[in-house]
């Protein structure tokens, strides 16, 4: 791509500069990027003068597909956006759909969704911090974190039969209620996890190589974080106290007692620390939600005509049979208002929002996703400028860029 190269060149390089400055191509297939993204670097010695990201290698038109799949079908595509925390994407998508339709899901469903998003957050932060540690020379911590994440993956498999492509939510509820097997397995994991997590922290917090490779690298000030639209742990590590779970409580987050973790430094190390402390807070939320899990149905009433009714109702009552057909028949389905809405959740990576336009049918007229990875990766040239080539992996790791969400 000649144009990306041209754009990264300064306008009038002097001859001395040209002698020292050279161009390094990083990616799109490089093990340290973890995903498919490309950087064109201008380097003087070991120092990065300018970095120009070139993205789009994984662009698959998710937003265009969103205009052709119905609301329940599209949840399978959201799995594939940020595949590190698919459950959070599922919940974000259906929260937006329910806001458009004006449905409020039952309390039990809200609590279950909270538990799942927090589990997704833990799994995301474990992988993000583990991979960042792996790239900066701390291999052992990565193995511990990855092993715990594997247990979470197993937990998701118990939940819905899939490890990554969960697609667990439905418009107005969930695929089905939590099973007793899942709850007991989750309780077991909650007992064993804190000890391993403490080990991971001990392996990294005072690990001299890890600390020196991340402290003071890629500093983002508070003003820059706001101006560059940063959200989530990256903004909070720079001193922005914004957390949608506290500021605009959705899905019963107001019922739980937890802290918003912030830091003032805004470098890679503090982004790591904020993520690690968020894991502790997520554990608190999961404990509270699990102990106070309300009884009752997980899905909205069949009268809403968005969700398939119970099989016992379908077979034994005429109303149940009618509402079953109302949902499954291709010329029926449910109706959306001629309205548009923006709805966001605090996903592990930041604010994950959907801008939906309804045109009466059960297929979105426009399904815009506000991808946190995309917005955070736009900051990358700013964060890496003036640092060394070896710092690239530290900054990339701390931004937690997932290319599938970046390119959609």
């Amino acid at each position, binding site marked *: 791509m000649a*144009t990306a190269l041209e754009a990264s060149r300064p306008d009038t390089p002097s001859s001395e500069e040209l002698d020292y400055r050279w161009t390094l191509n990083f990616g799109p297939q490089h093990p340290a990027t973890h995903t498919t993204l490309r950087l064109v670097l201008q380097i003087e010695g070991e120092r990065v003068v300018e970095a120009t990201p070139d993205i*789009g290698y994984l662009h698959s038109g998710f937003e265009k597909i969103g*205009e052709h799949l119905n609301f329940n079908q599209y949840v399978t595509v959201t799995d594939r956006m940020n595949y590190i925390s698919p459950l959070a994407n599922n919940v974000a998508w259906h929260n937006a759909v329910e806001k458009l339709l004006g449905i409020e899901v039952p309390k039990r469903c809200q609590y279950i969704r909270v538990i799942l998003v927090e589990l997704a957050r833990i799994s995301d932060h474990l992988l993000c911090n583990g991979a960042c540690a792996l790239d900066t020379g701390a291999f052992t911590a990565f193995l511990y974190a990855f092993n715990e994440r594997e247990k979470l993956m197993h937990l998701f498999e118990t939940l819905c039969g899939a490890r990554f492509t969960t697609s667990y939510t439905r418009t107005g509820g969930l695929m089905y209620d939590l099973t007793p097997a899942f709850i007991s397995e989750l309780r077991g994991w909650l007992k064993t996890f804190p000890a391993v997590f403490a080990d991971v922290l001990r392996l990294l917090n005072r690990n001299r190589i890890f600390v020196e490779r991340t402290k003071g690298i890629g500093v983002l000030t508070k003003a820059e974080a*706001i101006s560059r*639209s940063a959200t989530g742990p990256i903004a909070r590590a720079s001193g922005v106290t*914004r957390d949608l779970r506290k500021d605009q409580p959705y899905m019963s987050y107001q019922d739980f007692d937890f802290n918003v973790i912030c830091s003032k430094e805004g470098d890679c190390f503090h982004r790591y620390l904020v993520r690690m402390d968020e894991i502790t807070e997520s554990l608190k939320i999961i404990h509270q939600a699990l102990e106070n899990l309300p009884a009752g149905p997980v899905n909205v009433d069949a009268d809403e005509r968005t969700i398939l009714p119970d099989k016992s109702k379908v077979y034994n009552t005429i109303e149940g049979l009618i509402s079953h057909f109302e949902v499954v028949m291709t010329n029926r389905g449910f109706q959306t208002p001629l309205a548009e809405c*923006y709805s966001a959740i605090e996903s592990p990576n930041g604010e994950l*929002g959907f801008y939906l336009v309804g045109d009466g049918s059960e297929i979105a007229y426009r399904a815009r996703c506000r991808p946190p990875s995309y*917005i955070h990766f736009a900051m990358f040239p700013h964060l890496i400028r003036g640092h060394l080539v070896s710092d690239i992996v530290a900054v990339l790791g701390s931004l937690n860029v997932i290319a599938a969400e970046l390119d959609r």
Partner: protein
Amino acid sequence: MADTATLDKLKARFGEADWKAGDRLPSASPGESRIVVPQSQLAKYLKFLKTDCGFDLLVDVTCVDYLHFRNAKDRFGLVYCLANTTTSERLIVRCYLNEPDLTVESAVPLWEGANWLEREVYDMFGIVFGGHPDLRRILLPDEFADHPLRKDYPLRGRGERHNFHRLTREEG
């Protein structure tokens, strides 16, 4: 939901006629506030909202093509989602555009974060942001001719994938 204070400030600064959403379709969802601003004054409104009303965070910039939308008057609708990081107030700013004049002023001087967001809107819809420092395609290859999120572009594309130029070893 925007506070009434914000709407009062807007009224004091710009009068009322311009930004009232009115009965445009599609309407905003309940609990969400939005204003509709004229194309030529977009940057002025955004600047006022940022400096005087405290909307310091640009959450998202996107666009909707209303080509096949029932009873819609305009072709394109730009969406700016703004938020206040201290009060968590939210506001959606809409700006409707029609062919052939698909140009608005860029928001990059106000928010650095607008850079890639506007590039994506340009890439997908062909809206031109005047004064943007680096308005190139971002997700699609540079030689791509269409704007695929427009409603007149087919889901399966126009054969770009099959006719994609392959670089041979000799050429490279």
